[in-house]
């Protein structure tokens, strides 16, 4: 299947133009001198300067980062446990309910997840703040982590674990020395996914945050509702830049790893 027709070329070009032009426009106009976002009035970085002066945005960014680090880390631990239980746990009471609870949050509309968690927090009298957002984000992102990790667990050869146990490892050692290194890429991918989901989330955070803790998406949303502003463009450009660098680095690293793995496999094949 490597015959690119003119139709393929056109659809790829238009498709990627559609995906990227809006973001490119956003980035270009973050360097605009004028407050009017749609009229070009010369190059300037003043909106970045103003952004760094804006205490409210900086505070919100700090809260968002804290929430994302805590929630994605807890979610990775819980999600990996859940994946391990689902794939290796065998039968136990309420297994169907458990797998239902893992998959349901993936398809649950955010407004419902947010509403239900808020009603719970009010019901038990928990003050809304950083803690409640962390609890909420952990709950939905652990399900994503567990899906990512269990897809890796399903494909890997169980006899490796059994060999480790036969050779005298305790189950905990077998997990640490054999299973964990093999599923590590999936665990890292799960953590990154959970981290991004948490950074990105507006709806659930709006329901579960209190006046003491505003996250960046909430701040952006309330600013954007009033219209387009160059400061938000500058902020968006910074966020797009971080993500772009991150994704490129991650893909280079994974490419290098797979090349090295191939070389090792070839070397092993030659040695035999």
């Amino acid at each position: 299947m490597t015959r690119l027709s003119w139709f393929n070329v056109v659809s790829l070009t238009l498709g990627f133009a559609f995906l990227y032009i809006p973001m490119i426009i956003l980035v270009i106009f973050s360097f605009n001198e004028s407050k009017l976002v749609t009229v070009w009035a010369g190059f300037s970085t003043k909106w970045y300067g103003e952004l760094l002066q804006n205490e409210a945005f900086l505070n919100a960014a700090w809260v968002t980062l804290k929430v994302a680090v805590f929630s994605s880390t807890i979610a990775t631990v819980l999600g990996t446990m859940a994946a391990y239980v689902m794939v290796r746990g065998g039968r136990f009471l309420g297994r169907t309910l458990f797998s239902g609870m893992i998959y349901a949050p993936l398809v649950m509309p955010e407004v419902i997840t947010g509403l239900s968690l808020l009603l719970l927090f009010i019901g038990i009298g928990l003050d809304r703040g950083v803690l409640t957002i962390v609890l909420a984000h952990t709950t939905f992102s652990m399900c994503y982590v567990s899906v990512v990790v269990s897809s890796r667990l399903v494909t890997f050869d169980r006899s490796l674990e059994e060999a480790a146990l036969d050779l005298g490892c305790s189950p905990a050692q077998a997990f640490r020395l054999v299973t964990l290194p093999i599923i590590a890429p999936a665990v890292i991918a799960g953590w990154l996914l959970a981290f991004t989901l948490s950074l990105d989330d507006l709806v659930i955070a709006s329901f579960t945050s209190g006046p003491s803790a505003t996250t960046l998406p909430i701040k952006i949303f309330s600013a954007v509702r009033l219209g387009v502003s160059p400061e938000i463009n500058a902020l968006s450009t910074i966020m797009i830049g971080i993500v772009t660098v991150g994704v490129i680095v991650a893909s280079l690293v994974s490419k290098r790893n797979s090349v090295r793995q191939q070389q090792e496999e070839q070397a092993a094949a030659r040695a035999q």
Partner: protein
Amino acid sequence: MRRFFLIAVPYVWLLALFLIPFVIVLKISLSDVALSIPPYTPTLDLSVGWQGIKEFFAALDFENFIWLTSDDLYWKAYLSSLKIAVVSTSLTLLIGYPIAYGMARAPQEWRATLMMLVILPFWTSFLIRVYAWMGILSNEGFLNQLLMWTGIIGEPLTILNTNTAVYIGIVYTYLPFMILPIYAALERMDGSLIEAAEDLGCSRAQAFWLVTIPLSRPGIAAGSFLVFIPALGEFVIPSLLGGSGTLMIGKVLWEEFFSNRDWPVASAVAVVLLLILVIPIVLFQRNQQKQAEADQ
């Protein structure tokens, strides 16, 4: 013991923060709105014992659900959300399929880069991607500037704050979800099948229609599901790009809760939305199962 711990920790977490909250929503949807804290009645008072529980259940009723059917705002919002979700899923499929098809036919050494280019927007903030269109679609925006400059139109078009803008927003933000599963299905496909079909007398178009499309059906189903489900409950896109005429149930729920502070009605809206979502989920699951059986 360790196994018990391994199962119990995530289990209890999900019970406490997923299932119980949902039961609370269900309960409040059967309660009545009240001017108190919390703003609904009845509240369960366990201190009066069995009598309290009996009174609690006696006070629950389906009044909010009857209210949802009698006020036409709600069923119109459900219908219009369904319509917007169906139309935008179809548009995403029409736009995403040719892109996925082009990717699958691209030379091997390009594919990793093309994949990365599709995934990159997915990692970028959803809110920012929606926001980017506000500057493009507004009356003084780039699209109108471009169209007026080329002389296609004389007056600026009103696109922002209409349903058209909502469609554009949904297609744009969910396009990667459509492209990736279709690409995965097309890439697995054996190219010699197309050659066989053409040797047997099919035209290019016939081969595409009779071989490629059926073989990519699992990808189409997965992609459509991944776009339809979030589109139905969408809140951010209709509230930023849509106008006062855009009725979507996610927005109605939000306003019912935050503006009207009517928690029981907001909860009832949520319960009905979930019931609607159950249908496509069951259909999709059945489809997946059939696929798994066919593969064996």
